[in-house]
Structure formats: structure tokens, C-alpha cells
């Protein structure tokens, strides 16, 4: 059964059946396939965002750079930020959530498999919509800015600025209003960013709901909340952060879109609107977003460190509660992004204090990770190196972050490269190092093969050195007064040498990523077979064969303790040291055999066409709003909703399963999937 055409399609409401090939990926509801697609898409956007960063660095390599025009530079730092935050780190985390969450809680799929596919398709259509601006965008001079003689000037935009890259959105990733409003950013580029982010938000909201219900309802027998791996906990916290922060940015994006498309006055100071409101709404979302980016990496590190230290995670409950506390406090510190925006001294003091407070749970986590490694028998494989790198780099980024709670100091640092250095230490040195650690660690889970260790270590060291060469000097540049988002600096400013070093560092990072890419391609084809338990792991996703079978667990697992798999393999001697049980190797062999040979046919969620079709309608609505004054736009405003609503009806009517299909249907013990198709 490789194609849908192998059976007569009597009705469009028949569920698709392909399990391999193109259509199986379009119609899949399998959390693993969705996770893999998220991963590849995220890496694709990582490359794009990285290339944008390299262009920025070429421009800044020396004083008075003329590699990019000013408009191109603005577009590049904006799209670099948007891409890395929304199109790389978030979907890369979603890839891990999708692939691992059901495996780690002992489930066969998420609570709503079709909704899971829907959120993936909305994400990818949203990302492509955002970048489709390159076909439509053009550099349009701002209107209404007059010089002292009353002559309308258009900044430094002239004919030579009408370039391809210059037409991309250019308001900074936070799209401050009214700079990104109708007067100062005419043209469609900002609209693409606003509506693109709105679509991406819908995708994230759907997956947040899905993951919350999955964690609460789909756990295997005995998998109590405080027996869940820390990664699952962090997934849950991230899902709640998304759930409560996305509606706020949705409101802000609606308001900004209405300002631009329909002439409302929310952020237009000239009409009585309040630009600072945009900052509040944006950062009320934007600061939780920071934790949305970092907590998944913290979850990954909390899995990799114990396994490679051959010790339980030190203070499991403390790490879990610290993660939840970070989530709570993350909603109370947003105004530290706005200390220079003219908020009152009381607000500054309060948000400064809250910002200091958030260092406490973060510090707890750091010490717990160090406690985990302390006295352990450490295995320095690539995954472990990246995790240790994460802890070290995140400490640096965290400490420079705490300096922002000192308000007068923050005034000095605002909009300088000090800030750029700081947040790259937490988001690159933190989030991305953590994600790479997870890729090296769980690669066998996806492919059944190990990644090459020599290439992996080369990747780590090249990237580690390149990373520090890139971002450490930014702190010094910032304290010397180098301003963010400025496309040139003068030779006499004395900023040249360190900027040159930063550019060298950026290309070193690119070399590291290239090594990773080679490693991925090589290891996927020729990597050493991993067997069932390559890392001597602790959690139950390693009790099933590699690569993961479609049904995940041949028999639903029953959990007896935290780190259940470890306790099946090890007991403790009188001094508390782990001793491998005599039958542990037999156990692994038996698990591998049983995992590959389920006793009965296993019923899995059926694929569906409708998530793909439904998601397709949203970008069409987006184009419709942007071009609503033209006839094509008006047509799209009809066609887009019709596609989405039509798909919704099809979604509701299509059968939940195909009972006559012998391949997918079966009864018997271990054959049921709770919640199958109930999306």
C-alpha cells in the first residue's frame, strides 16, 4: 500500500492510506513524521537566517562598510531575528516536542493527531507566506517626513536601494510602532511580517493546546506527573506559556494590521494613539517568548546530562518547579525591555526587582545540572559536550542578563551591542547548543544510527570557538558605545578590530554548521547502527526499537518510577552505587525483539487530507487582507475562508477510521489507541 490510487476512491471522505511516499507525508497524522518535517523545515530556515547574519557581518566587518545598502541592512537584521526566533528555534523545539513527547510518556500519539498535522501545515504555510514578501515587497520611501525647509525627504532611500533584499520587512523583529506603521513603513513588507506572525501564532496555539491535553491525558499507566522526564515538564511549561502569551501578541498584531490596512489609530501618535502600548503588548508576549525558546533546551539538557553522567538528575523536583517558576515569573518582567521608554520610576523598580528574582530559579537549575555532573562518571560524547557548553554559555548569558535589572546600567546598555551579545549567549549559546545536544542524543531514535563522533566533536569545537569569538566581543563593543541596528560605523570610532573578529567568528560558526550538515548526511546513510540503547539511557523512549516503529510501543508500558528504564537495568549496592543487573542485556534484547513484533495489529490514527487543505486557506486570507483594495484581494478574501471552512466541514464528516482496511485495523490486547482520531 504505497499510494492512495491503489484502491478505488469512491468518495473524497475516505481517509487516505499511503504509508510511504509523497502523499504519506502530506496526509500523515503520525507525530513522528510531523516532528521530522518540523525538524527539516527548521534547519532550512536556520540556513536562511544564518546567511542573513553572514551578510550583516560582511557589512560590519570594517568601518564604512558598503556591502549592503542601509535598506538592505535593515531588512537583513529584521528577517534574521524573525527567522531565527519564529522559524528556527520554535519549530526546532516543536520537532522535539512532536517526536519525543508521546514516546516519553508512553503514548502511541498525541491527543489530537489531525490537529497536530494542522498546526504543522499552518506553520509551514505561515513561514512561506512571510518569505513570499520577496516576490511582492518593494522599498517605498516613508511619507510625510519633512525637513526644515518643508521639503519631503525620504531618509536615505534612493533609486539604488530598490533591491531584492531591501524589500523584506525592516522594522526590527519587534516591529515597533509607529515606525512599522503606515506612515513610516509604507509598502507591504511589514504587513507580511504582521500577518505571517499571526498565522505562525495560530499554529503554535494549536500545538500548545494539543501538548497540554496530551501530557495531562495520554500518559501511560503509572506515569505520574512527577515521574515524567524533565523534558516533558518543560514541554508542558512551554505550552502554557504559549497558551497565555500568544493571544496577547495576536491582539497586538490585529491592532497593528488594522492600523495599516484600515486606518485605525491604535499606535499612531498623530491620531492620539499610544506607541508605548505596542511595546507593552509586544513584550508581554515577547518576554515569555524568551522562555519559550530556552525551556525546551533546558529540558533536553536535563535528559542528556544525567544519562552521560550515569547519575540521576540532581534535585529532579527542584528542576521541575524551577522550570514552572520561570514560566510564572516570565510574565512579570516584560517592562525591563522598556526601561528607556519613559515608564515611571516605580514601574522601573518593580520590574528591576522581578528581573532579579527570575535569576533564582535559573540559578537553581544551573546548580542542579552541576550537581548532576559532580561525582558522576562522565562520558564526553558530542551530545554531552553540547550540554556542558549549554550550561557554561547560558551562565554567561544569564549573568549579563541580570545586569539589565540594574536600571541605570540598563539605560547605558539599551540598544547597544551589549544587548546583542547578551541575548545571543542565551539564545545561541543556550537554546541552539541545547538543540544540537538533543539532535546528537536522539538521532538514533529517528534513524537507528549513531551520528559520527569525530565529525560531531569537530562540529562542537569549531562552533564553540566561533560562537565565543562572535558574541563575546559584542559586549565590549556595546560598552564602547556601538549602537544596534546601525549599518555603518566611522573609522575613528575605533570599533574596527573587534568587529573584524566578530565577522571571523560568524564564519567560523558557519563552518561548524557545515560540518554538522555533512555529519547528518553521512550518518543518516552510513552511521554505525545504534541498537536499542546506545547511551545506556534512563527514560522509556529508549525501551523501544530504533528507528521508532510506527506504533511506538508494541505493548503499552507500565511505569514504576522516575527513570524507569534505568531501574530496570540497574540496582544499587550498599553504598548506593549503581550495579548493572545480570539480566540487563537480555532485557534490552528482549525489548528490541518484542518492540519489533507486536502481538496484534495496532490501530493507529488514520491520515487525513484536511489539515493540509485547511492550512492552505490561511495565507490566502493573509494576501486578501494585504491587497484588499484590489479585486484579486477581494476574491482571495472569499476563496481563503471557503477553503478553510470547506476543509473544516470535510474534517468533521470524514470517518474517524477505515474499518475495512485490514492493514490498519486490529483488535486484541495492546491494540487500542486511546483517543485515536478524536481530534
Amino acid at each position, binding site marked *: 500500500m504505497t499510494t492512495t490510487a491503489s484502491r478505488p476512491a469512491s468518495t473524497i471522505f475516505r481517509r487516505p492510506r499511503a504509508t510511504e511516499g509523497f502523499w504519506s507525508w502530506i496526509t500523515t497524522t503520525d507525530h513522528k513524521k510531523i516532528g521530522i518535517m518540523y525538524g527539516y523545515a527548521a534547519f532550512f530556515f536556520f540556513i536562511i537566517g544564518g546567511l542573513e547574519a553572514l551578510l550583516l557581518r560582511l557589512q560590519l566587518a570594517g568601518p564604512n562598510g558598503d556591502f549592503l545598502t542601509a535598506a538592505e541592512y535593515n531588512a537583513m537584521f529584521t528577517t534574521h531575528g524573525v527567522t531565527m526566533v519564529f522559524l528556527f528555534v520554535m519549530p526546532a523545539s516543536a520537532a522535539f516536542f512532536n517526536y519525543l513527547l508521546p514516546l516519553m510518556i508512553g503514548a502511541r500519539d498525541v*491527543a489530537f493527531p489531525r490537529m497536530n498535522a494542522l498546526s504543522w501545515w499552518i506553520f509551514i504555510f505561515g513561514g512561506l507566506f512571510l518569505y513570499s514578501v520577496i516576490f511582492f515587497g518593494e522599498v517605498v520611501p516613508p511619507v510625510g517626513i519633512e525637513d526644515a525647509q518643508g521639503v519631503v525627504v525620504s531618509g536615505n532611500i534612493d533609486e539604488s536601494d530598490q533591491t531584492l533584499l531591501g524589500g523584506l520587512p525592516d522594522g526590527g523583529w519587534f516591529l515597533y510602532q509607529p515606525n512599522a506603521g503606515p506612515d513610516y513603513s509604507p509598502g507591504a513588507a511589514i504587513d507580511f511580517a504582521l500577518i505571517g506572525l499571526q498565522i505562525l501564532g495560530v499554529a503554535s496555539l494549536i500545538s500548545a493546546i494539543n501538548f497540554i491535553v496530551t501530557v495531562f491525558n495520554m500518559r501511560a499507566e*503509572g506515569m505520574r506527573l512527577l515521574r515524567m522526564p524533565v523534558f516533558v515538564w518543560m514541554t508542558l511549561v512551554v505550552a502554557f506559556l504559549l497558551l*497565555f502569551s500568544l493571544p496577547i501578541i495576536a491582539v497586538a498584531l490585529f491592532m497593528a494590521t488594522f492600523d495599516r490596512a484600515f486606518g485605525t489609530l*491604535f499606535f499612531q501618535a498623530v491620531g492620539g*494613539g499610544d506607541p508605548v502600548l505596542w511595546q507593552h503588548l509586544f513584550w508581554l508576549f515577547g518576554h515569555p517568548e524568551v522562555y519559550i525558546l530556552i525551556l525546551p533546551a533546558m529540558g533536553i539538557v536535563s535528559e542528556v546530562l544525567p544519562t552521560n553522567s550515569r547519575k540521576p538528575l540532581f534535585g529532579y523536583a527542584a528542576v521541575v518547579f524551577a522550570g514552572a517558576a520561570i514560566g510564572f515569573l516570565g510574565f512579570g518582567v516584560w517592562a525591563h525591555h522598556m526601561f528607556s521608554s519613559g515608564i515611571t520610576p516605580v514601574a522601573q523598580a518593580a520590574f528591576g526587582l522581578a528581573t532579579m528574582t527570575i535569576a533564582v530559579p535559573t540559578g537553581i537549575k544551573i546548580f542542579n545540572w552541576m550537581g548532576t555532573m559532580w561525582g558522576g562518571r562522565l562520558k564526553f560524547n558530542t551530545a554531552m559536550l553540547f550540554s556542558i557548553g549549554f550550561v557554561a554559555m547560558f551562565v554567561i548569558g544569564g549573568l549579563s542578563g541580570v545586569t539589565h535589572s540594574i536600571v541605570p546600567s540598563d539605560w547605558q546598555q539599551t540598544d547597544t551591542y551589549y544587548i546583542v551579545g547578551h541575548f545571543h549567549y542565551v539564545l545561541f549559546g543556550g537554546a541552539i547548543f541545547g538543540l544540537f545536544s538533543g539532535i546528537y542524543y536522539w538521532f538514533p531514535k529517528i534513524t537507528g544510527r549513531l551520528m559520527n563522533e569525530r565529525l560531531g566533536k569537530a562540529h562542537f569545537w569549531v562552533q564553540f570557538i566561533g560562537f565565543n569569538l562572535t558574541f563575546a566581543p559584542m559586549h565590549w563593543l556595546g560598552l564602547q558605545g556601538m549602537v544596534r541596528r546601525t549599518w555603518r560605523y566611522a573609522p575613528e570610532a575605533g570599533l574596527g578590530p573587534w568587529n573584524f573578529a566578530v565577522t571571523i567568528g560568524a564564519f567560523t560558526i558557519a563552518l561548524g554548521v557545515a560540518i554538522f550538515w555533512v555529519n547528518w548526511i553521512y550518518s543518516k546513510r552510513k552511521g554505525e547502527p545504534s541498537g536499542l540503547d546506545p547511551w545506556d539511557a534512563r527514560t522509556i523512549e529508549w525501551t523501544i526499537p530504533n528507528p521508532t516503529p510506527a506504533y511506538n510501543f508494541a505493548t503499552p508500558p507500565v511505569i514504576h518510577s522516575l527513570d524507569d528504564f534505568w531501574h530496570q537495568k540497574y540496582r544499587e549496592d550498599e553504598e548506593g552505587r549503581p550495579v548493572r543487573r545480570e539480566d540487563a542485556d537480555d532485557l534490552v534484547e528482549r525489548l528490541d525483539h518484542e518492540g519489533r513484533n507486536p502481538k496484534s495489529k495496532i490501530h493507529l490514527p488514520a491520515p487525513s487530507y484536511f489539515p493540509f487543505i485547511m492550512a492552505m486557506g490561511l495565507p490566502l486570507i493573509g494576501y486578501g487582507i494585504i491587497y484588499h483594495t484590489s479585486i484579486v484581494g477581494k476574491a482571495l478574501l472569499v476563496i481563503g475562508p471557503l477553503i478553510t471552512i470547506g476543509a473544516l466541514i470535510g474534517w468533521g464528516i470524514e470517518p474517524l477510521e477505515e474499518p475495512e482496511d485490514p492493514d490498519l485495523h486490529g483488535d486484541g490486547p495492546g491494540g487500542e489507541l486511546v483517543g485515536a482520531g*478524536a481530534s
Partner: protein
Amino acid sequence: MADTFEIEEGADAPEHDTGDDHHVVHESTGIDNRKLGMWVFLSSEFMFFGAFISNYLLYGNRDFDSVVPRDIYDIPFTSISSFVLLMSSLTMVLAHHALSTGDQNGTKTWLMATALLGSVFLGGQVFEFYEFITVKDMTLTSNPAASAFYMLTGFHGAHVAIGILMLLSLFGITRRQGGLSEKHGMNLELVGLYWHFVDIIWIVIFTIVYLLGAA
């Protein structure tokens, strides 16, 4: 939850065939996935409307010598349409009750009544917008207060409209299948949760925006 800890942190490796796990009910919440999902979604919706309401609170008084909503509210009219919307929550409960007692005809009747009451409310809102725009000369772009008012109440109206579509599709299923099954009983509950949420939010909007905001 605290007792589960000792097993995990204790010095002894856990015994795999003893312990209290066999007495423990499988720790799902026992709530239907879809129902839990709807609750989770609605918690997000509170933040959505919370942001819009805060926005109105900030902008409600910024008139700049043009007509703002608080000058032109027709409180008696809006009170009646609010009452109609609240009554639709009652009929929703009656529909749910009718289904639980197996009264298919009653279910259909009350579902239809709910959709009708919702439509009356929506019609009232369309009338109100029409009055404000044509007679009172307050448009979406008049001033920030007007922008905030139309966005907030407009998005609420869109939620009511979606709720009416959900009620009608439930009604359609009832007609087509000659009654709602136990499975669709769950669906009715989902629509009910959503409908009550939309009503509750309206109570907040009516109180804060109309009653407290009126000049």
C-alpha cells in the same frame, strides 16, 4: 503527589512487582480529551479578550473633540440585547439537559432557541454599529476610543457568530441522524462550554465598557 517521590529518590531500587502502583487508577485526568482541550483553549481566549478590554480601558477617554463611544451608548437597548444573550445561556443548559434525559425533540428545540437568541443579539450589534456609524458619525477611524470599541465588540461579535454556526451544525447533525448520540453529546457539551464563555465575556464587556464607561 508527594508520596510518589520516596519511591524514586529512595536508596532501594524499585521493586517492579510490588509497590502501590497496582492500586493506582491510570493517571489520566478522566476528562475527555476534547473537553479538556476546549477548557485549555478558553483559558487562552480569556487572555485574548483581556488584552482587548485593557486596550479599551486605556483608550476609552481619548476623544480629541470627536464622538467617543461613551457619549453615544444606548444603555437600555444594549441591556435588552445583553439580556437576550444571557437567556441563550439558559436555553443552552436546557438543550444539554434535554439530551441527558434522552429528549431528542427538546434538544433540537432548545438548540434552535439558543441559535435564535444569539442571532437576535448579533442583529442588535449590527444595528448598534449601523447607528453609531451613520447617525452618530463615529467610525472605526474616528479616534482611538472608537477604534478600541469596534475592535473589542467586533471580535466578540465574531465569536458569537462562530458559536451560532456551531449550534446550527449541531442542529444539522440532529436532523440528519434523527437525534444526537452519546458521542455527539460530548460535542454539545463542547459547544455549550464555548457558548457560555462567549456570554461570560459579554457580561464583563457590558459592565466595564458600557455601564462603567457611560458618561
